[in-house]
């Protein structure tokens, strides 16, 4: 693995590793780690760092929905044009072009079901290229970005063993 890949692997595992943590685990100099991360950020390889939050454990519950979108294209309008327009809305947290029965898989978030519904019906559905929306409200989240939301595994190993 290259230095860049190694550092990316560690940050994807835990974005809160300090440069020192990364240096010690890879045998790199701390300054080399810092420089590489700066490069990765400057080049847009690393786009941000966020906590993975279990929505069921927070005091304020947010409403999330996954929305399937179908679109029609014309000579003047591409997928990118539609995506850029949708992505500007702060309610949209994720937006992907996908293969299969529909075109875009979009995730939206709001304070209430009515807010999310209004957003879909007033802001998304009226976009001229969008021919259909199917909204799935998220009822429960079990795993996000590789992290399971269960109780975890107890370490029941003997404390000292040969």
């Amino acid at each position, binding site marked *: 693995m290259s230095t860049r890949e190694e550092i990316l*692997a*560690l940050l994807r595992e835990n974005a809160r590793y300090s440069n020192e*943590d990364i*240096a*010690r*685990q*890879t*045998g790199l100099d701390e300054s080399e780690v810092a420089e590489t991360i700066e490069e990765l950020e400057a080049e847009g390889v690393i786009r941000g760092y966020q906590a993975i939050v279990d929505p069921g454990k927070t005091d304020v519950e947010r409403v999330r929905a996954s929305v399937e979108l179908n679109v029609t294209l014309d000579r003047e309008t591409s997928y990118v044009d539609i995506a850029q327009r949708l992505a500007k809305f702060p309610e949209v947290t994720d937006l992907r072009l996908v293969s299969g029965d529909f075109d875009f898989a979009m995730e939206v978030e709001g304070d209430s079901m009515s807010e999310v519904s209004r957003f879909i019906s007033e802001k998304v559905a009226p976009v001229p290229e969008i021919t259909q929306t199917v909204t799935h409200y998220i009822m429960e989240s079990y795993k996000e970005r590789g992290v399971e939301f269960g109780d975890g*595994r107890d*370490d029941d*190993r*003997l*404390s*000292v*063993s*040969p």
Partner: protein
Amino acid sequence: MTFEESDRLEPIPPSGIRKFFELAEEYDDIISLGVGEPDFAPPWSARDAAIDSLERGKTSYTANRGRRDLRERIAAFVADRYDLGYDPDDEVLVTTGVSEALDLAFRAFCDPGDSVAIAQPCYVSYVPGASLAGADVIPVPTREADDFKLTPEVLESAGAADAEMLVMCYPNNPTGATMTAAELEPVAAFAREHDLTVLSDEVYSELTYGHEHTSIAAFPGMRERTVVFNGFSKAYAMTGLRLGYALGPADAIGSMNRIHQYTMLSAPTTAQYAALDALANCDGDVAEMRAQYDRRRQFVLSRFDDMGIDCFPAAGAFYAFPECPWDDADAFAEALIEEERVAVVPGDVFGAGGEGHLRVSYATSLSDLKEAMTRIESFLD
């Protein structure tokens, strides 16, 4: 008296680890670097295969030597990974962990009075195993100056030339030492020259960092005198499923099976299903665990270096084996538990050559390792 202990048990010493286990168990807030098994769960795919086999009621005995398809996969795996050729029909024996296989080998090949040279420090079962079979043990202490590798010099000076059998384990528990092909070559030559039977415990073979594992059985003239031991406990984190295997010439495996068929009948069936899946589908899981261990290894070695604790660059298993900052490693390990709630195991528990050292297991999350290292540092201040 109804239960009079047999004389056979007389040479079996009490476990040297017991004291530290009991001490560590007294505290809730202990961080243990004294654990000799992975902190990972087995790959889900392998667990799922075990569950599926239970649901289908696949719980009968298997062939004595293990399921034929499992023996085939084991033979294909060691051929691919270590360039070893064994016939699944009569050169592979699936056992209840490497521990059972070693016991079988001692009983199958040792006569009372035979000499067994054991490279030390080593896993705690070898000496009792050989003793129970009536053999005399010749300890072969490896040296920190050699990074705890086995050399013809240490074999010679320990008197191993006169032994019938040599027992060795690389990558090593407790030192984390590994041996490259170039380093194994002279040991193989020594074994051939002195006509030694070799028992090679290679259960940590998938956990080497920086170089590939080589089996001593792969050298010319070694296959016919070597039994290789391996298993699923370390690479696939399947310790409690108890599954290992022995590889050797047909007559040797046949002798071991003569005991195995009566004392064990067959290795646990559920574990055999998990192992089948592990070999077929879990290379990626093993690679990920190996990468994690390697990062922790480098972390631990770098922290010891900062603290001024001498530690050779252990390149295998999941152990570092630093020099103890105090003369009395036993007292140090005890005080470290009592004052800082960090458990490590003094090296002398693992035999000759281990004195003055500590076994530090890094089969623990990085956050616990960080905290443990901070505690050790403050203990030293």
